[in-house]
């Protein structure tokens, strides 16, 4: 196992541990750690593969997704003054974490059934981590109530797609990756503002109650 793979899988493990807590601030902290692991993996991948573009992408990922987005979302949480706890829906929180753990070997089997080129070092670990992050993000979005959790789950899913793309493409064009980062930032900003508006109009951010249009 190489250092890149260990960092990528550590990111996936942080995401799984994130599913195990209902505290929104702890979720954001663990999301930041997960993104930092992926950024470190990107920097090492740049050194191994001699891709100069990845040297620019790594600090951008760390700065925007690892620092700016969690800080902004924490600020939104404080601003709306809602409870910092999400009690979950469909599955109990510990069980949803164990479901996410169960998807880790499934993603390993998926990753090892793909075929790889010889120039890709440490790919099985990267694809395992990427697929696992995808599943983890989906499980997180499915089993939570709050709109804030939906955003965190979406960002985890996006991290998975980013990691999968990084391990599969030979040279990811810098401009595409920067565009994706900008999109994520804008999506988080809009999501935060929408949460703020929802809180103002409905006095809660519980998405399970948003399918009722009228109050009776």
């Amino acid at each position, binding site marked *: *196992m190489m250092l890149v793979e*260990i960092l990528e*899988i550590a990111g996936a*493990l942080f995401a*799984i*541990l994130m599913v*195990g*807590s*209902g505290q929104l601030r702890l979720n954001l902290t663990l999301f930041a750690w997960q993104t930092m692991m992926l950024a470190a993996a990107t920097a090492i991948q740049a050194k191994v593969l001699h891709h100069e573009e990845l040297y620019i992408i790594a600090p951008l990922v760390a700065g925007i997704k690892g620092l700016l987005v969690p800080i902004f979302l924490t600020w939104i949480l404080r601003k709306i003054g809602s409870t910092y706890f999400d009690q979950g829906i469909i599955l109990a*929180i*510990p*069980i949803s*974490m*164990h479901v996410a*753990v169960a998807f*880790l*070997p499934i993603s*390993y089997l998926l990753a*090892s059934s793909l075929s790889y080129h010889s120039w890709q070092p440490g790919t*099985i670990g990267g694809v395992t981590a990427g697929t696992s992050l995808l599943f983890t993000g989906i499980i997180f979005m499915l089993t939570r109530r709050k709109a804030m959790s939906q955003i965190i789950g979406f960002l985890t899913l996006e991290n998975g797609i980013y990691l999968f793309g990084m391990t599969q493409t030979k040279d990811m064009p810098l401009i595409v990756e920067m565009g994706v980062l900008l999109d994520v930032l804008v999506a988080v900003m809009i999501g935060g503002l929408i949460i703020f508006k929802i809180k103002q109009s409905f006095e809660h951010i519980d998405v399970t109650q948003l399918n009722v249009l009228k109050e009776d």
Partner: protein
Amino acid sequence: MKTLFISIYLVFAIVGLPFLALFLLRKTKAILQNRIGPPLLQPLYDLIKTIRKDEVVSKDASYLFRLSAFFVFSITLLLLFVVPWLPLKPNLFHSDLFLIIYLFGLLRFFAIIGGLDGGSPFGAFGTSREAILAALTEPAIMLALVAVAFTAKSTNIASALAQVDWHQFNHLPVWLLAATSLYLASLVELSRMPIDDPNTHLELTMVHEAMMIEYSGLSLALIQAAYALRMLILFGLISQFLIHALAIILPISLLTTAILTVVLIISLSIITAIIESFTVKLAWRKNPEFVAFTLSFSFFASLSTLVEGLSL
């Protein structure tokens, strides 16, 4: 000369280290709360004081009440020799992982019998809670030990610890994750802070303290000594795992291992005291969420052995 050194080390580790670990735990907590704290030999004075006191046994209690205290202490002594928690320790027994797990189970069985036999409502209260926690943590401990044993392809934990896997980086996550899982499990097992407050004064919130609330005199001393030795065994096993993870990166001699074990046991008890000072006790219904993290780390450890097995 070498034999003399080894005997001094073993006697210090088994007799002195539990008192030292307990002292450092209390002292660190006291310093963090701006108190002076107990003197170095306070755990020893406490033990002597408790032994010399008269024993009061409830009139509802049967012979099992006092007997279970002796059983708890003797099973802990057996565990002390079975578990490979100390380097240089002669391996008198085959330290099978299932033997270890079921000896821990037997230990808890007698503790529970003794707690129930006292006839006090608080004893029954604490006992039922302890039983629930035990049922929750047992799979985590079992999976972590199985993951470690899988690296040596044997159920003997001692042979897993004896193997030298210098520069086998595949084994590094197994040892680290198993150590993390075992540490979180030992916080539950030893009734430390996120689960149970050892300093609480209210019987309704106690877990471990409520179970031994009816004991006094010699029986209490035996149960407290068993607790200190159990802490030593668990922390020692965790430090063996951590040292083994370190041995993958750089070669370590036997002497360094012996010294590192003592340092790690002491630092683990200081870390436990720091955790205890900065966290609050979880509400009882939140405890399964904490234990779920322990189980997840065990799953990670066993999955990392599985990955290695598949890629072979």
